[in-house]
């Protein structure tokens, strides 16, 4: 199982790098789908079968389809590299260093697998539904209302003035 974890973790990291490094937008989007599927496999290895398939259905099967569709509609072929971002020039390197230091500290201070005591996994359809519709019903519904508002806003913005 550990070997499978490392294989798919490597796949996820390589695909993630490709999302950033690819010049053509469609390729970036496709590599992002690979990242999502690799993460779904990691969920499977953790025993969260339900989450794994929901991940594929929602992210890879619905959201990314819209991304790919929009890229195809705009027919974006090549991304021109720009050197205009002053912000990235000055802050990029320090931020990367800060992130690496942070990761290094986190890995260094990890007590090891023997000391970690994960709570029992509750990731089946029943327990997820139970959590969403009993314990967290208010945040859940508020989030859905928020998304609805965002959709309405997008529709209003996109509507042509007649």
């Amino acid at each position, binding site marked *: 199982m550990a070997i499978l974890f490392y294989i798919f973790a490597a796949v996820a990291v390589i695909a993630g790098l490709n999302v950033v490094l690819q010049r053509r937008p469609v390729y970036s989007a496709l590599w992002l789908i690979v990242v999502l599927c690799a993460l779904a496999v990691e969920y499977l290895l953790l025993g969260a079968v339900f989450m794994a398939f929901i991940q594929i259905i929602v992210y890879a*099967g619905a959201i990314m389809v819209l991304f790919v569709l929009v890229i195809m509609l705009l027919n974006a072929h090549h991304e021109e590299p720009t050197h205009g971002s002053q912000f990235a020039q000055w802050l990029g390197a320090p931020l990367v260093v800060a992130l690496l230091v942070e990761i290094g500290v986190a890995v260094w201070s990890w007590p090891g697998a023997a000391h970690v005591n994960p709570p029992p996994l509750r990731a089946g359809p029943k327990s997820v539904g139970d959590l969403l519709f009993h314990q967290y019903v208010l945040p859940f519904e508020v989030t859905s209302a928020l998304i609805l508002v965002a959709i309405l806003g997008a529709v209003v913005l996109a509507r042509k003035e007649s």
Partner: protein
Amino acid sequence: MAQFAEAHFFLIESVVKIIVVLFVLLTAVAYVVWLERKVVARIQSRWGPYWVGPHGLLQPLADGLKFLFKEDIVVQDADKVIYWMAPFLAFTLAFLSIAVIPFGGSFQLFGHTIQLQITDLNVGLLYVFAVTSLGVYSIALAGWSANSKYPLFGGLRSSAQMISYELSLGLGVVGVLMISGTLSLRGVVTPQVGFWHIAGIPFLPRWNVFRQPLGFLVYFIAAIAETNRIPFDLPEGETELVGGFHTEYSSFKFAMFFIAEYANMVTVSCLATLLFFGGWLGPLFGPYWLRVILPVIWFCLKVFCFLFFYIWMRGTLPRFRYDQLMAFGWKVLLPLGFLNVLGTSFVIAWLHS
């Protein structure tokens, strides 16, 4: 030692099951094509394929050979990687979903219980939906990568269509899931055992279709749209798009799209049978071996009926206009799906109170 033998037995069992199921599925796909040509010909007062073998029975083989030996043309300005990837993706995804379809009960062999299913996933239905939801990419990318106008239109149309109808497809099934309380495709069939009685006489089998007629209607219409079949076959409208998303594909790459479409039809029909028509359930009689084989026969017969219905519709109905398709999907089918879910949950809540 016993554990070792158990693991070996499981491996051999799985490999044998996978080989048999794939062989049956590929043959079925080939002969559904033959059946379609024959039935549509019959509807149109023609003979259909007749010369290769008796009644044209070897026609699928001849077609396959023809596809293999044809020149494989790659369009010059195509995005080569994606152009190659799309048909393989379509083919692979179409065959993945058969892994969780149960096609019979279980039987004893050498002291082991063998289930007639490659693997019984406890979220089998979600697995099928996950795999089919990825199928959109093959069509969209095939249309895009050829770098040609008409395939692009076909690809865009089909992506929009498949996203729209996927919602209704899922909603149609939710009612059944609420009744049976499981996502396992084997578990969905178990509550459908037996009959409803009127005055002590068995009258109707307890199939979900009689409890969820609206759900079935929504599911099946959405399923036809998902598989891009008439009257929803706009992605390949040959009269306006030359051929649709696969216009620039030739030879075996075209055949792979073709096979994928029919394999998807088989999958969708299997799901309809399992969810709404009692799966492999049917009258059982005779000795033990017959009791093992009969459910498989009932299952295949039910799936065959759906496939025949698909072909029948193709011979009968005209194609939708694109705006009609979208309006129907969003303004009729989706609300009906919601209505069904709401109604079912009210009834369940009322029965439980």
